[in-house]
């Protein structure tokens, strides 16, 4: 993984000094809150309901054991003993004191971390595949380019005050696991002409109050031209993106207003004018950065392991974990292990300081010192020898991190909602807890199969509800929390926006409604292999709608066994 050079380290330390000075001046009253607010936001410090919240950048979701330990230490010393992993592969601390924030940034700088550009109208953390570098379906490791984008976008003088925040995602695999279609810019590494890998560039995707699936703007872009092309897109957006209306200021609105063809024409025109050699990365610099991401030197080993097989036979919980949380690795005899921070009944994405320490230790002992954060608020140990899998699993059991529900219905993505967030209209966490518990039984969850479930506490959609196979949006209805259900969203290659099913439900009725929806799916699916999304796309939303809003009509037609549970 990438390690800070002297320039990076000096820059981050200088920012820490600046911020310490800004906080001191604020506490003395030399600067007002209006003057200070943009400064603290540039360092990831928000004011939430109960306290300040610090959002720490985890560049493209990659952490070393030392960094994860430091996050655990910060949770213990400065927070209430836990942190919350986010849908941008970052981590948030919910109980921060302003007077201690400079000390936290100093601690982060010691391990090459910071909170810069985790807020504000600038280019945010680049999302990528949590299995980058190890996935069997990968064309090329996207982390190299994610790091290049990080360096290019960090305090880029032209792009620190964009009309609105700006999010980029990149994937290098056949399967999109970075939700590129829901980003301002999505980048896919593809096989181009003459067997050279190139980039396909998508633009104008996003969630929020106006969900949009990104449009393809350039099917093939030479990789060495990436930065100048990104710069051209950003320039057009920076110039023409709306600054008069917060809700219309994202690039998706501009792309929609102009149409993709006109937007592309303007980007090409801008790109023509740019002095590309001064922007694009020289090959030597590319190679210098790429060297940090050389694959871990792993020896191929047998793809069966007696200890693993024996444990699978003897221990159903281990067998379930292996079925759901263990993934093929490009090197035979190795696997990637997903750690679901989604034990039913717990807060999605939260990890205690002790759990962070435990994962760091497993990464050091068995995982070549690398941990990934997924945008689904889970962790991944990407490089585990199959022969170490049992030991890793036992370590996870001891840490209370052995939920075998990765990407099942109870692996719910949820924002902090009204329990913490100043913007939220409704709570998300208790809803996630209730629903996850309903589907907590392993056999039931596995029978339902892969199902992306998302909950957002407001229309800003931090819980990505638009892209959930089942999505929940919290709304304020005359002072009470209500929840709107959307069905049919997908964040992947077949990206789609969920469709609203009907009027919203009060919190107490929501779990039943979800049970009904799942029961309809189980009843209607053609076979157990047909996923929820596939069934939904085949039968449409009417059967679900009828079951929820017009059950009497169903009764007269003969109610199924599944529905009687409701």
């Amino acid at each position: 993984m990438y390690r800070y050079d002297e320039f990076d380290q000096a820059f981050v330390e200088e920012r820490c000094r600046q911020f310490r000075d800004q906080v001191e001046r604020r506490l003395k009253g030399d600067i007002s809150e209006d003057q200070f607010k943009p400064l603290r936001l540039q360092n990831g410090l928000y004011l939430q309901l109960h306290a300040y919240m610090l959002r720490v950048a985890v560049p493209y979701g990659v952490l070393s054991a030392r960094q994860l330990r430091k996050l655990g230490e910060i949770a213990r010393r400065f927070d209430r003993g836990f942190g919350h992993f986010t849908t941008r592969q970052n981590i948030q601390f919910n109980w921060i004191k302003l007077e201690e924030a400079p000390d936290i940034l100093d601690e982060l700088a010691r391990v090459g971390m910071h909170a810069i550009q985790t807020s504000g109208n600038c280019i945010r953390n680049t999302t990528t595949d949590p299995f980058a570098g190890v996935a069997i379906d990968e064309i090329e490791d996207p982390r190299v380019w994610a790091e290049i984008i990080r360096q290019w976008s960090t305090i880029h003088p032209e792009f620190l005050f964009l009309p609105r925040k700006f999010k980029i995602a990149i994937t290098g695999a056949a399967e999109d696991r970075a939700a590129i279609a829901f980003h301002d810019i999505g980048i896919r590494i593809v096989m181009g002409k003459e067997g050279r890998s190139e980039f396909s560039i998508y633009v104008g995707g996003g969630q929020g109050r106006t969900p949009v699936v990104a449009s393809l703007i350039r099917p093939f872009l030479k990789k060495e031209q990436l930065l100048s092309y990104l710069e051209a897109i950003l320039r057009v957006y920076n110039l023409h993106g709306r600054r008069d209306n917060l809700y219309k200021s994202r690039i998706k609105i501009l792309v929609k207003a102009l149409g993709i063809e006109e937007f592309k024409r303007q980007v090409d025109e801008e790109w023509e004018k740019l002095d590309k050699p001064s922007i694009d990365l020289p090959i030597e610099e590319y190679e210098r950065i790429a060297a940090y991401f050389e694959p871990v030197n792993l020896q191929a080993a047998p793809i069966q392991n007696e200890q693993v097989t024996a444990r699978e036979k003897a221990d159903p919980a281990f067998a379930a974990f292996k079925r759901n949380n263990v993934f093929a690795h490009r090197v035979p005899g190795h696997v990637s292990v997903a750690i679901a921070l989604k034990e039913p009944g717990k807060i999605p994405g939260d990890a205690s300081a002790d759990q962070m320490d435990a994962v760091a230790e497993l990464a050091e002992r068995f995982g070549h010192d690398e941990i990934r954060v997924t945008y689904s608020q889970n962790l991944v140990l990407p490089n585990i020898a199959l022969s170490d899998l049992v030991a890793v699993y036992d370590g996870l059991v001891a840490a209370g991190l052995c939920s075998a529900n990765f990407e099942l219905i109870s692996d719910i993505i949820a924002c902090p909602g009204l329990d913490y967030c100043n913007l939220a209209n409704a709570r998300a966490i208790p809803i996630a807890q209730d629903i996850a518990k309903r589907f907590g039984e392993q056999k039931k969850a596995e029978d339902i199969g892969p199902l992306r479930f998302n909950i957002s506490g407001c229309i800003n959609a931090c819980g990505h509800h638009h892209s959930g196979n089942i999505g929940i949006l919290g709304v304020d209805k005359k002072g009470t929390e209500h929840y709107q259900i959307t069905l049919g969203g997908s964040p992947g290659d077949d990206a789609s926006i969920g469709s609203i099913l009907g009027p919203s439900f009060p919190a107490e009725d929501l779990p039943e409604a979800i049970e009904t929806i799942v029961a309809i799916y189980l009843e209607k699916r053609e076979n157990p292999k047909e996923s929820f999304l596939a069934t939904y796309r085949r039968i449409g939303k009417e059967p679900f709608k009828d079951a929820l809003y017009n059950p009497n009509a169903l009764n007269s037609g003969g109610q199924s066994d599944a529905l009687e549970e409701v």
Partner: protein
Amino acid sequence: MPSWKPCVVTANMLKTGDVVYLGPQEVWVRNIEDAVVAHNSDELAELEAAGQRASDAQLVISVYAMDVDVVEGKARPYTVREIIRAAHGPSI
């Protein structure tokens, strides 16, 4: 004339971010039941002026007046948001 709803003034402490309410003698208190309740617009104006002074003195930020119910003379929050704030922690 619009109907009047009793109010208290709330804020977050600058240094810690803690939720507080304006109590008697312009002291900021943690417990909403200890907050001074404004029963009319003149009383609210006084509370808001005190809130502004505390803001100017770098003691608190994000000062605002919020409607409350009054039970046995004490303020009670009634929106979900303010119930969660007054509890000083998440509902879970």
